[in-house]
């Protein structure tokens, strides 16, 4: 995804952009790249497996202080904190990708059809989406995870259930965004022009409306990637995440660390927490930077009314 974003970046603007915006965008890119690298290279980077309790020298032991063999100590259950934190990136990336895939496609298709055709179907879907949108995403995700896995995170279904739960709360968001764009584009004269010609609705939707409606989606990807991580972490924190022996998950580890904190043990809470913070920070900064670049109203350097040569403003 990061690669796609890089290609979409308007690079000439990047060079001359305002310092703050450029710094934010670059920080976002670097953090996101680090996150993806950690996730991909996790097995090579992590000293131990995510569910490993012992090595050749025997059990790791519970709540061990940071030391040479365990740079960030061990958890109450006896896992290596550093290893679980690194493996956690992998889980987060998988969930983000799965959740986005599961929500973007249905959200976009529903938004396009509903927005373009209008009528009763549209009103029904809007009512549903509005109600769902007004519902705490975390609670929706909890309900979904109960539905999918009966509340018990099985070894196989844990990841899938988490991804679906996160995805469900995103579908109405994509639906709303795409639908709003479709309705805006639909009233543009070029769509009227196609209708006057006699172009069929399917051709109008695919050729004229769809491609002009999804331009803002890359920005929403970054925002939703952040939300996916936060929702997953929230689920894990409430005990609806993924069992420790099926994958490493930051929210679950933080849940286990609540009691540790009360007894002054910091090393089990801070690493997974920082994992979440840095990842969300990266994707959010990336999104903010992209928004700044895309929104002429919020840009300073380029909002000058450049006089066009011959009367016409540019339609882009």
């Amino acid at each position, binding site marked *: 995804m990061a690669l796609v974003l890089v290609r979409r970046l308007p690079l*000439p*603007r990047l060079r*001359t952009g305002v310092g703050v915006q450029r710094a934010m965008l670059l920080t976002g890119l670097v953090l996101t790249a680090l996150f993806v690298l950690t996730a991909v290279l996790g097995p090579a980077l992590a000293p131990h497996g995510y569910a490993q309790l012992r090595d050749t020298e025997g059990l790791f032991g519970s709540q061990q202080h940071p030391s040479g063999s365990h740079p960030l100590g061990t958890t109450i259950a006896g896992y290596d904190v550093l290893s679980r934190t690194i493996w956690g990136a992998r889980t987060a990336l998988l969930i983000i990708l799965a959740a986005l895939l599961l929500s973007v496609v249905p959200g976009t298709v529903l938004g396009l059809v509903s927005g373009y055709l209008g009528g009763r179907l549209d009103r029904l879907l809007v009512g549903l989406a509005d109600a769902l949108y007004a519902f705490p995403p975390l609670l929706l995700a909890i309900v979904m995870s109960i539905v999918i896995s009966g509340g018990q995170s099985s070894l196989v279904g844990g990841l899938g259930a988490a991804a679906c739960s996160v995805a469900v709360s995103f579908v109405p968001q994509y639906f709303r965004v795409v639908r709003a764009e479709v309705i805006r584009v639909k009233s*543009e*004269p*070029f769509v*009227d*022009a*196609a*209708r*006057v*010609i*006699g*172009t*069929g609705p399917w*051709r109008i939707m695919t*050729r*004229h409306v769809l*491609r*002009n409606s999804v331009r803002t989606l890359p920005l929403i990807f970054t925002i939703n990637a952040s939300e996916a991580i936060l929702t997953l972490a929230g689920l894990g924190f409430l005990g609806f995440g993924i069992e420790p022996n099926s994958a490493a998950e930051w929210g679950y580890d933080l849940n286990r660390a609540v009691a540790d904190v009360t007894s002054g043990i910091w090393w089990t809470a801070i690493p997974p927490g920082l994992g979440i913070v840095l990842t969300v920070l990266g994707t959010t900064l990336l999104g903010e930077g992209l928004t700044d670049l895309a929104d002429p109203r919020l840009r*300073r*350097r*380029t*909002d*000058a*009314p*450049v*006089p*066009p*040569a*011959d*009367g*016409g*403003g*540019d*339609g*882009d």
Partner: protein
Amino acid sequence: MTDLLRIEDLHVSFATDTGPAPAVGGVSLSVAPGEVLALVGESGSGKTVTARSVLGLLPATATAHGRVLLGDGTADPEEDVLTASPARLRALRGTHAAMVFQEPSTALNPVFTIGWQLTEGLRAHGHGGSKSERRALAIEWLDKVGIPDPATRVDHYPHQLSGGQKQRAVIAMALALGTRLIVADEPTTALDVTVQAEILELLHRCRTDFGTAVLLITHNMGVVADLADRVAVMRAGQVVEQAPVRDLFAAPAAPYTRELLAAVPDFGTGGRARPAAADVAGQPVVRASQLVVDYPGRLGSKGFRAVDGVNFEIHPGEMLGLVGESGSGKTTIGRAIAGLTPVTGGRLELFGEPLTRKRKAVAGRIGYVFQDPATSFNPLLTITDSIAEPLVVHRRELGAKEIRTQAEALLEAVHLPRAYADRYPHELSGGQRQRASLARALALRPKLLVADEPTSALDVSVQAKVLDLFAELQQELGFAALFVSHDLAVVEQVADRVIVLHRGRIAEEGATSQVLGSPQDDYTRRLVAALPVPDPVRQARRHHSPVAEGVTGP
């Protein structure tokens, strides 16, 4: 007495991604007390930037050099706006010069009352004493600019006022601070022609009753002829000619001024001479009887009847002009014929058949040209792709190669160079896009063309060329056309017959020269009288006897 405003060698450029873009390059102007100086030019000429620099309202990206001197008329102007301290600049704003904006609805803060906004200016300059005194002053000024029932209106929010009243309120805010100079940036462009006439009258009074000078920024030569004492013509950031208004219109010196004046359609000098091509005897292309179009209201609120029982016919080969102000229903009629807006009642026949839901058969026989060339093309398709779209939809059997050949032929027919074939819409100028729009509309050789304000987004010189092309193609292809416009001068130039619409009903109908030359209906008369003609001598005469003089027929 000496000048109120003196601009000396003003240069303004904007910082952009691709380096500084010059907008104004060496402008020198002056405005004397009580004088109206019109600054005219087409879009991008730098006239608005020049005007905004007078009040120091340039955006942060702008860099300005030169001097913009403001004075109070008693001595040589000596305070330079460009170098004044922020506090001094605030003191100058409103008292030495005040601004009237193009769009009165955005120039007023939507969440505060008119009275509050008026007193904010007074408050900023410490005028008016107590709150109640300031309020009384506000009511007094609203009254002076002709807002009815000012004691009530003072507590109204902007959206409760009509467009003309809003512009009056903006002018009242400028006058209330006792300014000697009003900078009016296209003050009537957003308004209907009858409202425009009222605002022009008010600006006249600003000079006669209050002795205020006006720096008038406009592209409309009729407005210039009506109001200005002197004219400065701008082009590409420079003043190409300055002259008293009568001299300029009578004997323009600069070639650009001549070109500009020649392009302005001169209302009342008769339409184009062309053979009567209309085939009145044949079956009408469009026949509407008791046509009604409603727009539904939201959430059970009352809908809006845009077209209310209209009867008309368009004959083959005829050019029918449909004129009216905003809200008259003219665009709706065009959209209903093209099937873009559903008909609520009455009967609409196209090519002898009643309009049904199955539009595809009819679709290929109607072409449509939209008002805004910037948005009427899909930004992601090339010009050729867009022009070829009707052929792809209706005549797929031709094959890709033949369609491409035909599309290129169409480009040629509208005088667009072949090199533009693979460009995207934003790479074309407004005029070029409107040519392409014509090409697309004519791709299937339709029997009827609906043109909805096809030139109102264009500069006047571009408009002239597009109108010529329009006439040329109509001559050649012989299609019937419905020409929807608010501009009587343009309609007079192109239409064989005219329908005047007023609030969804037909006010008057007939041959162009008859309806516009000697109007019978009251509303048509007002409309014709309100239109300023681009000739200061004739316009001055019309002022004396607004309705009676009318227009001399051909």
